[in-house]
């Protein structure tokens, strides 16, 4: 198994290499450059040219690519033109914010979706089931920004239960209990918004898996052993129904760094989703390319992680 995992990591190198070429070419195609947004009628065109020269934008394409790759291997992802800090520390800050938000969101998603999926599947076609399915369809259909705005307006502005922007209170001292509470407090509303809308897939998966598992022969066997129905569900049906969700867990884990542009924008939460879109708007090459490389790597890692998790929970699957 370890051999396979090592091999999968090695295969990632050419995959990432191909990805890097694509990213570089696409970045070249983007109209404008980091300085075009700064041009005003008073700007000296020579100054811009000077800046371009300094940034290496006038070098031949292959030299630019080579420099980019070499620097990346040395852990230098360049500086952000907009934020005037190194890309590494920028992504570090934003990534951490997003990680906390995603962790809480995913936790809430599972907290809501698993019981609902289980109930819907177990009491198929009952009123409970129909209500849950209706909820999952409605939540799937509502755009994130609509519910986000409603929540900000109702819970943030009208009821004043939650803060409407930022990641923490500036008055709290770092390290104190109040400091950590204020971080969680700021996470709650965006996380709840995300969770309410993000449950559909898991509810529907779990529901159909349970309905399917109920009809399996091994459930009949379990019942013929005289096991009470409750135990048949807990010992045989639920566990087997969770497999597809476990199979997706790898992507969920690596997806924690993805962030959501809408949620972060509406709740004024500085995270990865917002950083990504903002960088594209600002032609902030170094940030964009680094982020896409990172997401590419995470996707590959997610698929490997999913395979490993599946091989742990399903004895029929062994990584050879």
């Amino acid at each position, binding site marked *: 198994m370890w051999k396979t995992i090592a091999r999968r990591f090695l295969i990632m190198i050419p995959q990432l290499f191909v990805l890097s070429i694509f990213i570089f070419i696409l970045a070249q195609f983007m109209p404008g450059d980091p300085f075009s947004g700064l041009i005003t009628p008073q700007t000296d065109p020579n100054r811009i040219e000077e800046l371009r020269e300094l940034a290496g934008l006038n070098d031949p394409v292959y030299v630019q690519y080579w420099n980019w790759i070499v620097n990346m291997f040395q852990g230098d992802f360049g500086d952000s033109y907009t934020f005037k800090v190194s890309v590494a520390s920028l992504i570090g800050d934003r990534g951490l914010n997003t990680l906390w938000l995603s962790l809480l969101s995913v936790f809430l998603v599972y907290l809501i979706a698993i019981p609902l999926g289980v109930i819907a599947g177990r009491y198929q076609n009952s009123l409970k089931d129909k209500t849950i399915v209706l909820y999952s369809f409605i939540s799937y259909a509502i755009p994130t920004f609509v519910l986000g705005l409603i929540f900000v307006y109702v819970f943030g502005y009208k009821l004043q239960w939650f803060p409407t922007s930022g990641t923490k209170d500036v008055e709290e001292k770092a390290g104190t209990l109040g400091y950590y509470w204020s971080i969680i407090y700021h996470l709650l509303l965006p996380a709840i918004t995300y969770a309410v809308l993000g449950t559909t897939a898991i509810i529907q998966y779990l529901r159909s898996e349970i309905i399917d598992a109920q009809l399996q022969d091994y459930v009949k066997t*379990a019942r013929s*052993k005289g096991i009470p129905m409750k135990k048949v569900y807990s010992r045989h049906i639920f566990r087997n129904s969770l497999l597809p969700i476990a199979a997706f867990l790898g992507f969920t884990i690596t997806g924690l760094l993805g962030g959501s542009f809408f949620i972060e924008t509406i709740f004024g939460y500085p995270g990865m989703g917002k950083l990504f879109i903002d960088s594209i708007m600002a032609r902030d090459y170094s940030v964009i390319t680094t982020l896409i490389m990172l997401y590419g790597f995470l996707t590959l890692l997610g698929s490997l992680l999913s395979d490993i998790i599946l091989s742990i*929970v399903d004895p029929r699957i062994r990584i050879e």
Partner: protein
Amino acid sequence: MKTSEEVLANNLKSSNEILKINHLRTSFRIKDSYYDAVDDVSLSLKENEVLAIVGESGCGKSTLATSIVGLHNPLNTKVTGEILYNGSNIVKLKEDDLNKIRGNDIGFIFQDPLSALNPLMRIGDQIEESLFFHTKLDEQQRKKRVLELLDQVGIINPKRVARQFSHQLSGGMRQRVMIAIAIACKPKIMIADEPTTALDVTIQAQILDLLLDLQAETNAGIILITHDLGVVAEVADRVAVMYAGQIIEIASVQELFNNPKHPYTRSLLNSIPQVERESEKLEVIQGIVPTLTKLSKHGCRFSPRIPWIDESKHEKEPQLHEISPGHFVRCTCWKNFHFDGEKGGSHL
């Protein structure tokens, strides 16, 4: 086929009935009406007896078997009649009381052991489950008993197999494991629903031998559901032939094979390929078993498949008639039955 002395001895020592089914009717709801998959079946099972139930697919054999342990979904199934076991009527029992009987007094063996075993649970744990719910053994004793059971069903390396998963075993091993589950609590009755259908022929014989060996130890009564008449001839004491939800003939295995009466039984036996027979054509029974929704509730249900027999030869409401001790046949059409193309004549 067992010799007549054996049968006689069997009958003598096991005259006590352990299961009695009276007028059992199992109906499934399809759209808004109920249709009888098992229609007024009465049967009894004695200790140490192998009762075979045969018939084509869709005749209600498996439904009958699962009705005995009440495994149907009560939302779309209606079961009426009596299944008397140990002084109580299983049909009327509550789920909790049924669970005391299932697995404990009645062991169930399913057709396809690959799908009947939980793929994510270790073999040992699956056997242990019945012990956990039916016995007072502590964990260590249960583990020990699991190994004993695996040994009893002829598994060479019980310790290893107990830790394995079903996909790691061969088909024959899996069915042995199923049998170990069924006999874990020493049931008085074993219901085997086509236990050898999914296995190849050499393994079939081993599994049947195993069932008979276990029966010799426990004196359990076995209900063997099968469509394989070869298996019936080998292991059964009595045979009930089912067609379209009804029993159409029931007799001891000798009587049934030597002196079959009902046209359906005769057609079934006639369709067994035989080496001596010159014709290269396989004998088949015309038509198919009627589906539940298209089943006529009146007249002889087999008559559409023997159209060359005149309608007047059938009873209007066919009943089971005892034509010799222990040999029952439904309808009177058998008296005038001949195979298509043969000359008509009385078989009296």
